[in-house]
C-alpha cells in the first residue's frame, strides 16, 4: 500500500517536472520564431512537410465525414419532416466540432508523430548536439520553423476539412437523397453565424494546432535518444495530443457556446 502511494507521488512529481520542462521549451520556441521570419525558406519547407503532405488525408476524410453526416442526418431529420435543415446540421456539426477536432486528431497522427520521430532521431543521431557545437541553436533552426508551420497549417486544414465536408453532405443530401439544393444552402446560411460558428471553429483549430505542435516537438526533443525511446515518444505524442484535443474541445465549447 505504501508502495502504491510512493509510486503515485513519484509519478505526480515526474509529470510536474515534465510540464515545467515543456513550458520552458515552449518559451524558447516562441522566442525562436522571430528568427524564422527572417528565413522564410525554412518555414516554407516545413509548411510543405506538415501542411501539404496532410492535405490529402484531410480532404478525403473531410469528404467522407461530410457524406456520412449527410446520410445519417437525412434519416433522422426525415422522421420529423425536416430534411430541409440537413444543411444546417451538416455545416454546424462540421464547423463547430468535427472540422477542428477530427482534423486535429488526423494532424496529430499524420504530422505530429512524424515531427516527434524526426526530432527524436535527430537527437539520437547527435544532429541537435552537433548543431549546438557549431554554435547554431537547434531550437531556432529546427524546432521553431516546425512549430510555426504546424500552428499555421492547422486552421487551414480544419477549414478545408469543413468545406469539403459540407460539399460532401450536399452531394449525398441533394444529389442522392433528394433534399432541395436551395434549401440545403439557404437554411445553412440563415442559421450559421459568422462570428459565433465560423470564427469560433477557427479559434478552436488554432488552439489545437498550437497544442499539437507543442506536444509533438517537445516529445521529440525530450525523447530518450534510443530507438525504443523515440518510438515511445511517438506513441505519447499521438495519445497526449488526442487527450489534449478532446479535453480542450470540451472546455472551449463550454466557453464559446455555453451562453446560447
Amino acid at each position: 500500500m505504501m508502495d502504491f502511494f510512493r509510486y503515485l507521488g513519484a509519478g505526480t512529481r515526474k509529470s510536474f517536472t515534465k510540464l515545467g520542462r515543456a513550458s520552458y521549451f515552449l518559451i524558447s520556441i516562441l522566442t525562436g520564431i522571430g528568427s524564422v521570419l527572417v528565413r522564410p525558406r525554412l518555414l516554407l519547407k516545413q509548411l510543405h512537410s506538415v501542411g501539404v503532405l496532410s492535405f490529402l488525408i484531410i480532404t478525403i476524410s473531410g469528404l467522407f465525414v461530410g457524406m456520412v453526416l449527410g446520410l445519417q442526418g437525412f434519416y433522422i431529420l426525415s422522421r420529423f419532416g425536416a430534411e430541409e435543415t440537413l444543411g444546417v446540421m451538416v455545416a454546424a456539426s462540421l464547423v463547430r466540432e468535427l472540422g477542428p477536432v477530427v482534423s486535429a486528431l488526423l494532424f496529430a497522427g499524420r504530422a505530429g508523430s512524424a515531427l516527434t520521430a524526426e526530432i527524436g532521431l535527430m537527437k539520437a543521431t547527435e544532429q541537435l548536439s552537433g548543431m549546438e557545437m557549431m554554435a547554431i541553436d537547434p531550437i531556432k533552426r529546427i524546432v521553431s520553423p516546425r512549430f510555426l508551420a504546424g500552428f499555421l497549417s492547422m486552421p487551414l486544414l480544419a477549414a478545408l476539412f469543413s468545406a469539403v465536408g459540407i460539399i460532401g453532405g450536399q452531394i449525398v443530401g441533394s444529389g442522392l437523397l433528394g433534399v432541395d439544393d436551395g434549401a440545403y444552402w439557404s437554411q445553412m446560411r440563415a442559421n450559421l453565424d459568422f462570428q459565433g460558428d465560423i470564427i469560433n471553429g477557427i479559434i478552436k483549430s488554432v488552439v489545437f494546432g498550437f497544442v499539437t505542435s507543442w506536444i509533438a516537438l517537445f516529445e521529440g526533443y525530450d525523447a530518450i535518444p534510443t530507438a525504443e525511446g523515440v518510438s515511445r515518444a511517438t506513441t505519447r505524442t499521438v495519445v497526449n495530443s488526442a487527450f489534449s484535443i478532446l479535453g480542450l474541445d470540451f472546455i472551449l465549447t463550454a466557453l464559446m457556446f455555453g451562453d446560447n
Partner: protein
Amino acid sequence: MDIFNSSQDSLVSVHNLTFSRGEKKIFDDISLEFERGKITAIMGPSGTGKTTLLKIIGGQLFPNRGNVIVNGRNVHNLKRDELYTLRRRMGMLFQSGALLTDMTVFDNVAYPLREHSHLPESMIRSLVLMKLEAVGLRGARDLMPNELSGGMARRVALARAIALDPMMIMYDEPFTGQDPISMGALVLLIKSLNTTLNLTSIIVSHDVHETAAIADYIYVLSEGKVVGQGTPQEIQQSSSEWVQQFMNGAADGPVHFHYPAKEYMDDLLHSEKPLFSRHRPSNDRTAKRRRYS
C-alpha cells in the same frame, strides 16, 4: 582574469572537475591541460565518460564542481551569446558524424558558413570545395548522408568541423568502427590537419595503437580519476597497473570486467525469479539494489 589561472601555452585547462550523473561520479576532481598546437588524447575504457568530458568542454553539460577554461575564458560562466561565439572556434567531430540527414554533403559543409558568415555564395562554394578536398571527398559533394559509409560520413563531418577555421577540434572516438584502410586515412588526416591548420586537437578514444601513434600527450582515465599521463612513450613504460592493463588489453586487472554487484552466490540463491526471469543485466540489478537499501 581567467587567463592568469591557466598556463600560457594551454588552450584548454580543466581544473578540479567533478561531475556526477545520478549517484554515479563520472569525474572525481580531475585536472587536465591541453596544449596549443598539440594533439592530446584522453583514453580509458568505455563508460568512463570520455564523451561527457567533451560535452563539458563544449559547454553542453555543466560540471558539479570545478571549471573549464578555453582560450582564457571560463566556459560555464559565459553568457549564452558569448558561449556561442566561442563555439564557432571549437570544432567537434561526433562519433556518428552527426551530419544533417536532409542536406547533401555540400550543404552540410556549407551550413556553418552560411549561418555564421555573410560570404557570397560563390565564395562559400570555393571554401566548401577546399574543405572537402582536404578530406578527399570533393567528388562526393552531391551525395546525401545516408549514401555515405561510416568512414566517409566522419570525414565529411571533419570537413564541416574545420569549415569555420576553428582553433581546436574535439574528436569523439574517431577510430571506432572503421576498417583498417579508412582508419589509417583518418589517422593521417588528423595528424596533417593538426600541423597544416595549426589546430589544437583533443582526441577521445579507446583505440590504443592509433591514438598512441599521433598523440603528443595522453591522459588515461579510469573510474573518474586520471590514472596515468605523459607522452606515448612514458605511458607505454608506465609502472601503473591500471595503465598497463589498459594499454595491453588485459581482461581483468584493477579495472573489473564485472559491473559492481553483490556477491555472486548471494544473487544466485536469493534471486526472486531464479528460473524464468529474463537476463537483464544492469537495470535489474540497480533496481534490486535500490529496493533492498
